[in-house]
């Protein structure tokens, strides 16, 4: 479980998060939703210690994030951030291979190679594995970064808008893969927290939803409870119609 307790955060004196408290359950998919600028990325970066925690506490499976050594945390939690620019000239296979760094620290072994091969085939990158990253399309790059996060093989995986730039085939494939790896019935189920803007993916696949607005948690619970016209209209400030299709909410936000 990730316990977030009374977390407030300021950037250059501007308050971004106000007293955020919530729990993210172990195993399953948690979707983080909310308007642009709500503070979703900031919260995710605080959990992944990419930003220093200023106020409050964040505990991942019993370990306080601000006190756990970075390299220990890298074995439990991986993050694929929203904007990752890469300066060096890297091939896809090398990038995915870096996901294994916390395990081998420079000396990859056979199990590292196996994990990299698996991540590469999971995200349909076989044909691209020898291509340079800066010679790929946006969606192909995005898949390579997500594959790197998966290769890290951690219990927790934080994905900031992983569906960015993906076509519908790859977007669904990613969600299906994440879903399959997070089932509680597995030996070692993963837990995935993802920021999603395309709300129907959250409706279709998420087990738990946390809604953020203006730096505060405005709602959290199961998709059925959160994805209602009333809650969504308040969250995004627009009229939103919700239908039921095959027992799941279908959000008609695009019309």
């Amino acid at each position, binding site marked *: 479980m990730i316990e977030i307790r009374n977390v407030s955060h300021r950037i250059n004196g501007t308050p971004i998060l106000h007293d955020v408290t919530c729990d993210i359950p172990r195993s399953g998919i948690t979707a983080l939703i909310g308007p642009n600028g709500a503070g979703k990325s900031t919260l995710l970066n605080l959990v992944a210690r*990419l930003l220093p925690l200023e106020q409050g506490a964040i505990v991942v499976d019993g370990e306080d994030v601000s006190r756990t050594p970075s390299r220990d945390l890298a074995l439990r939690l991986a993050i694929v951030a929203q904007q*990752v620019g890469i300066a060096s000239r890297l091939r896809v296979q090398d990038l995915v291979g870096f996901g294994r760094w916390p395990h081998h620290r420079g000396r990859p072994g056979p199990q590292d190679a196996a994990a990299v091969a698996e991540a590469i085939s999971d995200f349909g990158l076989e044909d691209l594995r020898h291509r340079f990253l800066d010679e790929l399309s946006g969606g192909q790059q995005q898949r390579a970064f997500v594959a790197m996060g998966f290769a890290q093989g951690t219990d927790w995986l934080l994905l900031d808008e992983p569906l960015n730039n993906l076509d519908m085939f790859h977007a669904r494939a990613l969600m299906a893969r994440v879903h399959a790896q997070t089932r509680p019935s597995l030996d070692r189920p993963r837990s995935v927290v993802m920021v999603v803007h395309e709300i129907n993916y959250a409706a279709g696949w998420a087990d738990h939803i946390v809604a953020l607005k203006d730096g505060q948690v405005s709602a959290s619970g199961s998709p059925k409870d959160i994805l209602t016209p009333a809650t969504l209209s308040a969250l995004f400030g627009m009229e939103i119609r919700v239908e039921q299709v095959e027992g799941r909410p279908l959000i008609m936000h695009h019309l």
Partner: protein
Amino acid sequence: MPDRRLVLLACLLVLACALFLVWGLKGRVGFILELRSIKLAALLCVGAAVGISTVVFQTVTGNRILTPAIMGFDALFLLMQTGLVFLLGGFGYLSLAGPAKFLLETVVMMAAAMALFSLLLGRGKHDMHRMILVGVIFGVFFRSLTGFLQRVIDPSEYSVVQGAMFASFGSVDPAQLFFAGAVTLAALAVLARLAGTLDVVALGRSTAIGLGLAYDRLVIALLAVTAALVSVSTALVGPITFLGLLVAALAHALMRSHRHAVLLPASAMIAATVLVAGQWLFERVLHLQSTLAVIIEFFGGTFFLFLVLKGRIR
């Protein structure tokens, strides 16, 4: 694949060294060989320091166009020289012994670099661009101050400053060389162990932290090593702005790899080869003293422009 290219570079370097040592050898062979070996050692030391410090600096800053010189290092060096002449007078400056002056210069340069870096990193500001901007501003400030001091000092003493202002590969103080060699070897030993970690640093701050690096501490340490290397080369032969730029671009273009295990040795060997072969060509073959620095700056600048225009720099 990269290994064969490294072997080729090593062969070129050995060839250049051999030419440098034995070309036109006659008369008191032992004495001349000793003089040449000292010079050769200095060139190798400067080459390794310039090549490696530039590659590390560019990796840390995530940039292929900046070098430590842009952070105001050479400007600080010139200010220090001018300041010493101003304080001690031309004669006092010249009588300042080699090793003491060298150590002082290295320590001042490292301290200045660390002050700059920790000022900007220490307060949780992880903003490389801000740091570089401050570096550029400091560079301008140091240059203006140097210009001011030069106008104030005696014209005859100004000529002493001028000697230090331009890179010269002619004279090397053996004692100074000993310290420079020790500092360079220590820095190389540290970086050799960090080659794999540098590959991760090159992925950028978020990714590196996500993979478990203590990024901020590591960056400070890497910049300190860079500062030490830059001090060594500047103190030994003076400011050479474009050599690092030229060499780092060449190393990246030739090795086409993200692995510092090959980039670092490649850049060190390319820089050393350029210096040794260049010095041999200009001093021994063409009998042109003290033109190598000018040529390196000219070709370095031109080649760099070419690379930028061809879009080969990434």
